[in-house]
């Protein structure tokens, strides 16, 4: 094609319009085609996280977990019934990290005071620093910690590394990931607060 025609206004506008329509159609098609698989992946991921929070990794989800709601506000709650019949109550967590959202699941024993297990995940924390919250070495120490000091709700503090020994209400943070660690601390406190009346009621 000669250069003069290629630089004309009408040619340029038609070219741009056609390109946009074609690309939009292509992307819509791809997104529709891949969506079922993506949704399935996302659901499987959620179920895996919930199972991990009660230390039942790679067990069948339906066998152990049932979905329910708590209190008059219909807060989401998952109840896990272990093989020996004891029940664990799993509360979903949502919060903010340094770069983006954090989320996780906190499993409580049936005394509603002590933690049975926890998992955390994030969308964009710094690899090697804040992103380490997704690792078991960070979430494992939550097990056995207590949310209450006497009758007062104190949540769990995430402290500087090495400062949480013998503290029943704190775990070690990640050095170099202070803002993410603080995000986890705030997330636990803020996500649990709406559940407090419900937890009291059950005690």
């Amino acid at each position: 094609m000669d250069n003069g025609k290629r630089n004309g206004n009408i040619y340029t506008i038609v070219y741009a319009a056609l390109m946009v329509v074609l690309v939009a159609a292509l992307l819509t098609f791809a997104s529709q085609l891949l969506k079922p698989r993506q949704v399935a992946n996302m659901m499987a991921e959620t179920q895996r996280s919930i199972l991990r929070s009660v230390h039942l990794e790679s067990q069948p989800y339906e066998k152990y977990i049932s979905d329910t709601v708590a209190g008059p506000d219909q807060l989401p709650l998952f109840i896990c019934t272990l093989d020996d019949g004891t029940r664990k109550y799993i509360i979903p967590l949502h919060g903010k990290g340094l770069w983006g959202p954090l989320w996780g699941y906190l499993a409580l024993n049936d005394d509603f005071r002590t933690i049975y297990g926890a998992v955390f995940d994030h969308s964009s924390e710094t690899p090697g620093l804040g992103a380490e919250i997704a690792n078991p070495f960070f979430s494992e120490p939550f097990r056995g910690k207590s949310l209450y000091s006497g009758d007062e709700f104190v949540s769990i503090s995430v402290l500087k590394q090495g400062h949480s020994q013998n503290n029943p209400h704190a775990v070690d943070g990640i050095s170099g990931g202070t803002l993410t660690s603080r995000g986890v601390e705030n997330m636990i406190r803020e996500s649990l607060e709406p559940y407090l009346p419900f937890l009291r009621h059950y005690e």
Partner: protein
Amino acid sequence: MNKRIFLDPLFKNNPIPVLALGICSALAVTVKLEPAMVMALSVTLVTGFSSMILSLLRNTIPNRIRIIVQLVVVATLVILVDQVLKAFAWEISKQLSVFVGLIITNCIIMGRIEAFALYNKPFPSLVDGLANGLGYGIILIAVSVVRELLGSGTLMGYQVIPQQWYVANGGVYENNGLFILPPMALIILGLIVWVFNAKNAKRV
């Protein structure tokens, strides 16, 4: 001819140390080896195919919206890569989340389209794009091996430095936290640029 197009970007004209393109993401994704490798692969595919597609279109693109057309093609490919990873490689897509989107801003891609694909046939353009992606990948992997090994004591997530060497276990060794932070990536990259410049100076 095609062999030279392929080998040149790997060493003599490597996009990062010699052409100084794509440095930003080389600093961002090199804390660990595994994401660096997936990033290298994704960039290679996107540079290769965007160069090929734009080379096919090169005689039809209106001059005044040239850059926009390039951007649309690159962005489309990146979105497709992201969607396919989400559907078929969920774990990896989770690790790379933000970085996949950032491929669009990788200067190498637009640089090779502007400098090569718009003036060459589709097949050499594909080779040029793939080779530049690989050249980028080599540097990414080199930097991330140093950073993960000295910063975290691991490679691909596996512990390489023996546990008993660490101070915590009675040894004398400690991971160097500086390697996890971006400034150290810049220093390592500087050393690599030095090596490349010294080699290329000799050749001239």
